[in-house]
């Protein structure tokens, strides 16, 4: 297999939040390179800066210093249109709180990014149904989010994140609001997408079940990278503390 290119590169990214006189350093200089097709988990205690890093990589927030490159393009250099394009085509977002648009049906939620991308109604509907089928919810396409369970909503969100075949899926605690079994289903689904479609999956999580499917795990503590573990090392550590299932 050819050497995969660096799809995401984070260089010296720091982010401070100033609230009145109080300064919170959410990130204190993070360097990270992520290869295309990788399944990467970002682990760390609450408040360690996972979501902040997620927002930086996703172009949802700007670093106080340092740079984020997507496909070696510095996203700070992008104008509003290009940034919208990036969010629309290049990255699929999945959130802990699902964030489906409540007034729209499952299908409309999935097709919205395609509409933004200029797809025709028919194209969008066809692909939308196909994606809902992929996550096992084709029959529920006419249902609104409040008529779906948490796990089902998250599956719709995953289908939506795939709408414009993004190169990257960014997930911030995708299993955070789900029970064990449902969480596992979501993880399996993400892993399948990563291996079958070659999508780069970057996921911030508390969930130790994520470790089993990750190619690499980045441990964050107090806004810094604590350690980065490869798949091979992981088996040992995780096995060692007996957290590994099956």
């Amino acid at each position: 297999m050819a050497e995969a290119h660096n799809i995401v590169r984070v260089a010296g990214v720091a982010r401070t939040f100033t609230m009145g006189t109080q300064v919170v350093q959410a990130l204190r200089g993070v360097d990270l390179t992520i290869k295309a097709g990788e399944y990467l988990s970002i682990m760390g205690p609450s408040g360690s800066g996972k979501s902040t890093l997620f927002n930086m990589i996703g172009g949802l927030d700007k670093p106080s210093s340092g740079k984020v490159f997507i496909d070696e393009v510095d996203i700070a250099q992008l104008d509003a249109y290009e940034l919208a394009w990036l969010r629309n085509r290049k990255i699929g977002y999945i959130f802990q709180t699902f964030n489906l648009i409540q007034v729209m049906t499952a299908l409309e939620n999935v097709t919205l990014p395609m509409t933004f991308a200029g797809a025709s109604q028919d194209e969008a509907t066809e692909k939308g149904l196909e994606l809902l089928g992929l996550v096992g919810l084709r029959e529920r396409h006419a249902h609104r989010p409040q008529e779906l369970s948490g796990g089902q909503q998250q599956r719709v969100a995953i289908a939506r994140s795939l709408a414009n075949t993004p190169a990257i899926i960014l997930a911030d605690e995708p299993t955070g609001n789900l029970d064990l079994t449902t969480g596992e289903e979501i993880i399996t689904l993400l892993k399948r997408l990563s291996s079958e479609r070659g999508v780069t999956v970057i996921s911030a999580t508390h969930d130790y079940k994520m470790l089993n499917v990750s190619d690499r795990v980045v441990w964050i503590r107090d806004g810094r990278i604590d350690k980065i573990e490869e798949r091979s090392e992981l088996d040992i550590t995780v096995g060692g503390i007996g957290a590994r299932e099956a």
Partner: protein
Amino acid sequence: MSQAEGASSNQTGKSARIARQVVLPFGKSLEISIKSIKVRFFRSMITVASLVLAVAFLSFILTGANVAAGLLRSGEPQLRLALVEAGYDLPSLPPPGVAPQDEAGKLSASPKERWIVILSLLVCTVGIVNAQLMAVTERFREIGTMKCLGALDRFILRLFLLEAGMQGLVGAFIGAILGVVVGLLVGLVRFGLAAAANLSPLDVLATLGISVAVGAGLSLLGVVYPAAVAARMRPIEAMRAQE
């Protein structure tokens, strides 16, 4: 060659990225705003309620003037006297050399009534701004999500303007009809059947037109600031705001 490399090669040129922009066709915007109004029907009703009342008041006052103008134009002395008795500022006898048309044209609402109408429209606009700001706050998450999916600021702006425009048109229309009906009824009570018989349909149409235009205009005016706030919000600010 890996699939990833294929994907990257069409990304290398910056021009290639700009070539394909994000869009939201007008028809689709309309569809989304209609859906939003339908789903949040109760909320929309509240936003529109004050507008209906203010516009009804405006069209009620205008209709009153229309009725008076119709009576005066008829040229019948006892109708003229009835108007004077009702408090209209008129000489009891037609002044020589002034056509009834011209006299009727000047016979609009009194300055006091005018001030009350303007004031009520002002209050209603402030009410709309308030209701729309609340609507925007309720929808922070939805706005943030749309932005994460690639929506531009102006998509959001357009959605809010369309919603307010439609609410404004419907609300102003209901208000205008309501005002005309009540105005006419009051005219009938005060002046009898002559009020309706001498009323010019053109005047009534003009009253309806003015009232609807003013109502829809105020509805749009009231949403400009809230919509601008919504549109300019960065996605994470919008997402962080918990409802």
